[in-house]
């Protein structure tokens, strides 16, 4: 199934070239979780990152559905 991963600001450095506005599309097997999807990229997976599914706070073990968007950004600063 196709899902999308979006990385914001400095995390974009972890994306392959050719992404559009920090978004890449991935073809992943059924049962792939939020954690599985985001761990394909070289970003911290501890409390230094905020990871949301379709903009919502979820358990990282939540399985993904077709068309889902996983977004991650650094929690190092604030706004």
């Amino acid at each position, binding site marked *: 199934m196709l899902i999308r991963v*979006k990385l914001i*600001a400095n995390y974009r450095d972890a994306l392959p070239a050719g992404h559009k506005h*920090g978004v890449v599309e991935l073809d992943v097997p059924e049962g792939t979780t939020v954690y599985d999807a985001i761990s394909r990229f070289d970003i911290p997976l501890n409390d230094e990152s905020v990871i949301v599914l379709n903009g919502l706070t979820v358990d990282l073990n939540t399985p993904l559905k077709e068309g889902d968007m996983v977004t991650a*950004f650094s*929690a190092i*600063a604030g*706004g």
Partner: protein
Amino acid sequence: MYGWHLKILRVNLTTRKVTMEDVDPKIARDYLGGRGWAIYYMYKEMDPAVDPLSPENMLIFATGPLTATPAPTGNRYMVVTKSPLTGALAHSNSGGDFPTWMKRTGFDMFIFEGKASEPVYVWVNEEQVEVRSAAHVWGKDTHETTDILLTETHPEARVACIGPAGENLALMAAIMNDKHRAAARSGVGAVMGSKNLKAVVAMGSKNPPLYNPEGMRELSVNTSKNVGADVKKGSNMRIYGTSYVPQVTNTLGILPTRNFLQGTFEHVHNIDGDALKDNYLIRHTPCYRCPLSCGRLTEVPEGPYKGKGEGPEYETISSLGTGCGVSNLAALVKANYLCNEYGLDTISTGMTIAAAMEMYEKGYLSEEVIGMPLRFGDHDAMIEMIKLMAYGKGFGKDLALGSYRLCEKYGHPEIAVTTRKQEFPGYDPRGSQGMGLLYATSNKGASHMEGDVAYEEVFGVPVKENPLTTEGKAELVKHFQDSFALIDSSGLCVFVAIRYVFDKTRIIWPQTLAAMMNLTTGAGYTPEEVLKAAERVYTLERMFLIKAGSGPEWDTLPPRMLHEPLPDGPAKGKVVELDKMLPEFYQKRGWDEKGYPTKEKLMELGLPLA
């Protein structure tokens, strides 16, 4: 005494009498400094019911005990006064150089009272204090004023001043220091203008003596190293400042768009941090002694919006940008420069124009009244409105009243997105419930700077909190409000403070901040004591509000937030469930069910009962 000078400079602008006063060490300790000292003096000396633009209002510049110490970001001051925008309290924070230079005059706090008979500026060179004519800079913008006053005082001095907006009493006028830094919110610049006070120039060499200089140096260096380690890892703040945030809030569906009619903006990529970095960023530019360095020098090199300056920050992008539906980055950057030069708060300026745009689109305001069409997304009209606001010309006179009064005047108060008549900052609380409670109860009206629980709800700092739930938010908001009162009283910047001088628990705990206060002042605070002092400050501010006529009846949100569900994004369908949080908030504060501090709470905090 250490850390504090325990000295106040008082300038009566009516009589031009200058006095230097000592501060009682017990008051210094109990009220911390900065914002805390200011409310202590205002509550003691001033009738909270006075007209904010009358000579009876006090205008206070206040540094904290950590200002001008080695503490990283010990570079802040607070401007405290009664707000002409809200009728409540204004306490606006700014960094840069000026606050440190001010503290080095040997005074912790400047109090300006009365009203000068003609435009003046005050030049403070330690104990040499002069009230000088400002006739030659009246009408000039903040940059030109700064350059001229440095020439005629001392090139190494620093300037805080108002621009045309403050002179013309725009209710969202800011006080700018070091050209680009703003004590922005609640119309503090209009109060300065009402006193005919164009500028304050400061310099000196009186660094406050430290109780334990070695210990303070070591703790400060270690704290700076922690910041530095994050910067090395690629902290967003050094590269983007806060301009990366639109992508975050857009993802969560809480990016104020078209006067909060929407929570996502389809053109966000045109005006986000990457667009700014790729097109106009020159370099980062720090406040004094800041290892984080979130300020950014930018330039639009050519074209109709040509200019050079600093920013924009997130709050400007979410007000003048998405708030107005504007997606032209060069025009947005220019609008930000203009606000800094005229001395306008970008949040209230942008959101007031946004409210006017909505009224125009709905047919409540005509082209005839405005003088031109004013559609969402019309960046040239937005820039024209900023100019009219600053100079109080034409329709700008109405805009300069802020969105609450503007919408009321034209018969549609439901359009204004304000609490206590102050415009919302850049987090739609329908998708960030804790922010809703914060806006509803803030002593200064809607503001993120009075207990920014978006740190947890949006940014996961120090822990991630679900923004769509209400459970536990009363406790969180109360604790963040007190913690921000502490930071504002200490002289530190929240950006460094929240992450580096509090313990990283959900209920952030000021272990390191208390240690810094002790090494600086020798006051021997426990973390519990500094938080209790901050609660004292917050509660005394609340007492001021009640006497000013901005009490519990104003602890609410505009109809859009309570009754119009977000139409788009992840928080679609949500309104703020304020009634689920407010009673518990009052309880956590030790206030009665109507929102008044109880006698027991006032006694516990050592505050006057009336």
